[in-house]
């Protein structure tokens, strides 16, 4: 009886294994049979064009571009709202993670070590609240940041690495919308800092860079629209970003240079009044962001 049972088990295992083997080989045969058809299909089938997707830059790059254009450090222009626990919805957490990321980049590139540490901690808190705090532990990033606090170049590389592990985390967890939301917050904060500094020095290069930054606003809006279904709050964020674009598009300097956003040889300059009206709108949206 016992032997019969073992024999049965052995036969069953062999039968199953053989079936699987032939199933696997069978699919190869099927593939070969279909190759002829595939060649015909390739020629005749029209190309299916998918929705466009977006790859937005990092907050650090935006801060770096402004820095290269001569953006000086000015105290008090970064977010003074330093209580990350106040943000309760995911969209407000993500927007303000972006705000803190921009402030962190500005502080690091201007060697404001203490401020950089504060924004790093706030970014960590918000990331924890968003359930992605583990990215700070990858590659010992948080500790390396503290140890290299007096080395601007090392800190910039650590922030870039943090961005990389965050991007990968969000992609692996199918939360790409967070990337677009965070960048929206960071972009508005960077523009707010740059326009506040511009008010003081009226630097031409900074004026050009403020205008250049406006060329990516459409990409930000489109990236948010592509992810709109994933979070109900994105619709309101799109409206905020569109309201900035409407102000910019209506400026006479922009209307008179319709190709400025595409022509690589044109560096658009805005008048001081135009920068003021843009600054006012950006400040309004930024206040809304940090209040949550």
């Amino acid at each position, binding site marked *: 009886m016992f032997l019969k049972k073992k024999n049965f088990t052995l036969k069953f*295992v062999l039968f199953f294994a053989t079936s699987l083997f032939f199933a696997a080989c069978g699919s190869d045969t*099927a593939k070969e049979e279909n190759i002829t058809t595939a060649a015909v299909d390739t020629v005749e089938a029209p*190309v299916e064009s998918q929705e*466009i997707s977006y790859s937005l830059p990092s907050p650090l790059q935006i801060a770096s571009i402004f820095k290269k254009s001569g953006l000086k450090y000015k105290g008090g222009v970064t977010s003074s709202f330093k209580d990350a626990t106040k943000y309760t919805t995911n969209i407000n957490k993500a927007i303000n993670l972006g705000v803190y990321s921009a402030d962190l980049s500005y502080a690091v590139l201007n060697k404001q070590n203490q401020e950089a540490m504060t924004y790093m901690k706030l970014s960590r808190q918000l990331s924890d609240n968003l359930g992605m705090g583990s990215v700070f532990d990858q590659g010992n990033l948080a500790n390396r940041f503290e140890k290299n606090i007096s080395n601007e170049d090392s800190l910039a*590389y650590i922030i870039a690495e943090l961005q990389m592990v965050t991007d990968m985390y969000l992609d692996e967890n199918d939360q790409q919308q967070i990337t677009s939301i965070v960048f929206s917050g960071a972009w508005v904060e960077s523009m707010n800092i740059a326009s506040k500094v511009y008010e003081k020095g009226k630097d031409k290069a900074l004026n050009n860079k403020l205008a250049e930054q406006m*060329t990516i606003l459409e990409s930000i809006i489109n990236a948010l629209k592509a992810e709109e279904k994933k979070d109900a709050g994105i619709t309101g964020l799109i409206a905020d970003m569109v309201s900035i674009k409407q102000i910019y598009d209506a400026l006479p300097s922009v209307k008179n240079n319709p190709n400025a956003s595409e022509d690589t040889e044109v560096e658009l300059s805005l008048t001081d009044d135009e920068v003021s009206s843009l600054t006012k709108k950006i400040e309004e949206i930024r206040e809304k962001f940090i209040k949550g």
Partner: protein
Amino acid sequence: MKKSFYISLVGLLFIFGFTTLQTADNCDKKALTASCKKKLEPFKYDSQKFTKINFTKKPQQLEVEVPIFIGEKYRLVFNTSGLPKGIKINIFTKDKEVKKREAIFSNKDAKDSEKELVFDAPRSRKMYVDYDVPADSTNAKLTGCMIFMVGYK
């Protein structure tokens, strides 16, 4: 008898593993990211884009818009090792709606064995990365992923 049982079991596991490998994609995102990062040096990491590709009976075109800034230097690193079969990669400065556009980069001359491709971008406002995915009528439901990483300095 016991020996035969274990031999059969090992055979079963081997065949099961073999069939599983036939259908799974090779999208190890961590490994692909690490590989691209090496090729990105000395440029600083800016962003990366994974695109899941499902091969269907019809050829497909997928496009990713990459906004860039004049005056900055950019490098793009592609890795195709997450794909079960080759695709065409082209980069343009105009989107797919524009009829007359010229590619500033193409992998058409790259060898099949070249899985990593590096492109240093010229001065531009935007780049459009296009993936031309060929048709697959084998019913094999082939899937995979493409990655490109953007760096700046």
